[in-house]
């Protein structure tokens, strides 16, 4: 008799069932013998992805699909600067603790410098843009812990 910690996934079994799904056109197979039970389901979802032509590369780096909880996103299109003026020290660095409202970055749009403020206090865990880089609306600039 199998022990509970014996419940390892049998890859070959899953593959065999998946092949059966394809072969038969089924979308789900459930199988149980005693206390052992397996159920495989094939969704009808691939259409969306397959239907579209290959996406063209985005101008700016696309925002990551899963964005971190403390992401600070760009409110506008423009060019990002990490320092108040050329040659000056960066406004913030990874590891810095910041106050709510503190200026984190600058974004130049239409020849105007816009300050990007910390939405809350926290610690800068990542900076995702380079000085002078173009940014698009909604792009994640940096992450606060």
């Amino acid at each position, binding site marked *: 008799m199998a022990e509970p910690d014996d419940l390892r996934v049998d890859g070959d079994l899953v593959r065999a069932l998946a092949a059966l799904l394809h072969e038969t056109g089924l979308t789900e197979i459930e199988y149980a013998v005693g206390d052992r039970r397996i159920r495989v389901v094939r969704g009808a979802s691939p259409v969306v992805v397959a239907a579209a032509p290959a996406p063209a590369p985005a101008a700016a780096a696309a925002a990551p699909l899963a964005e971190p909880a403390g992401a600070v996103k760009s409110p506008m299109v423009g060019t990002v600067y990490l320092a108040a003026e050329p040659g000056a020290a960066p406004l913030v660095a990874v590891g810095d603790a910041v106050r709510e409202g503190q200026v984190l970055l600058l974004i130049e749009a239409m020849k105007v410098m816009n300050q990007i403020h910390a939405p809350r206090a926290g610690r800068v865990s990542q900076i995702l843009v380079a000085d002078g880089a173009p940014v*698009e609306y909604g792009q994640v600039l940096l992450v606060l812990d």
Partner: protein
Amino acid sequence: MFEKVLIANRGEIALRIHRACREMGVRTVAVHSTADANAMHVRLADESVCIGPPAARDSYLNMSAILSAAAITGADAIHPGVGFLSENADFAAMVEEHGIAFIGPSPEHLRLMGDKVSARRAAEGFGIQVVPGSAVVDPAAAAAEARRIGFPVLIKAAAGGGGRGMRLAHSEAELASQLPAAAAEAKAYFGDGALYLERYLDRPRHIEVQILGDGQGGVVHLGERDCSLQRNHQKLLEETPSPALDADARARLAAAAVGAMRQLGYKGAGTLEFLYRAGEFFFIEMNARLQVEHPVSEMVSGIDIVREQIRIAAGEALGYGQEDVSLAGHAIECRINAEHPVSFAPSPGTIASYHVPGGLGVRVDSALYQGYTVPPHYDSLVAKLIVHGAGRGECVMRMKRALEEFVIAGIDTTIPLHQRLVAEPDFIAGAYDIGWIGRFLAAP
């Protein structure tokens, strides 16, 4: 020629512009709201920039975001498409101030044609007949003017468009009672309470002339379009040539439009719109931009209007005259909207299946694809089905069979309405006016 064109629009017209650029070897930048991240033109463009949230005022109408996108991508021209900023003289001026070419007419001409009163004055100056009428100064003067031009009269917002805020007055009493409400409505819709009074024409047709001018003395027309089939002033189906015109009327109309644009020194693609009734044309307005229904003119002329816009904006001369333009056959466009075909309720949603008609003389301009989700934030036009044929009869039959083949599932569309339309004896006979659709839809 430009290196890189930023397309400041969305949907099928953005794809239309992308295609023209691609065929000219010009690179494209798509700008888009967060709601359009998966749009076809975004996928096909060389580069794309997200410029704002779904609301148009924060994205497709956001001039500084669009200019910033042009700056960060190094675009050397902006095509504004149709709607949004395409007729905004301030935007055109701002684009040019940034050293970027605006693919459209000059800011001065946009300003001139953007106001109904100044456009009408300009047309009169060019010797074109306008619907008799004038600006409303005060109620007493309006009453006197109405007596002069004859009741019923139409009250319109001077800054208006798209039929919004129009009112009909059959008598002096009605006129007096309508004026304050019309002014309030004009103020609310267009930020300007100025009104305009004109003669009401009974059952006219809407006929417009497609113009191309290079601003260097070259002006040609690509024939007229009959856009009388309108529901609430929204065009549903357009065709060229108009079944209502004879050769003489057609020649008079084209000569008037070309003459005016030559005098103006117009640069770009533009459309002069007229009401037509019993042999007479009355200028109503000029759309100093590309129009949704431009494909029918392309089908009969063989001229790529968007390519011409781009060439003209790049400083090229037309390089051909009217004698080089030959208009062959007949073309019809059906606008397919994501709307219920009876209730006209908008129907955004995911396209469960999509199959376009093909074969000889059939063109589809659409940014749909299977699996695409039509967002709820913008207008409901999702596809234009255009057919071309040797004659009008052949063309109508081709439209019928193409509509039969067109599958758009998952959302409601107006395809069934168009199928009813092309089977109607009045449509087949070409006997319709701008009120026809309203009566057709109201019929039990």
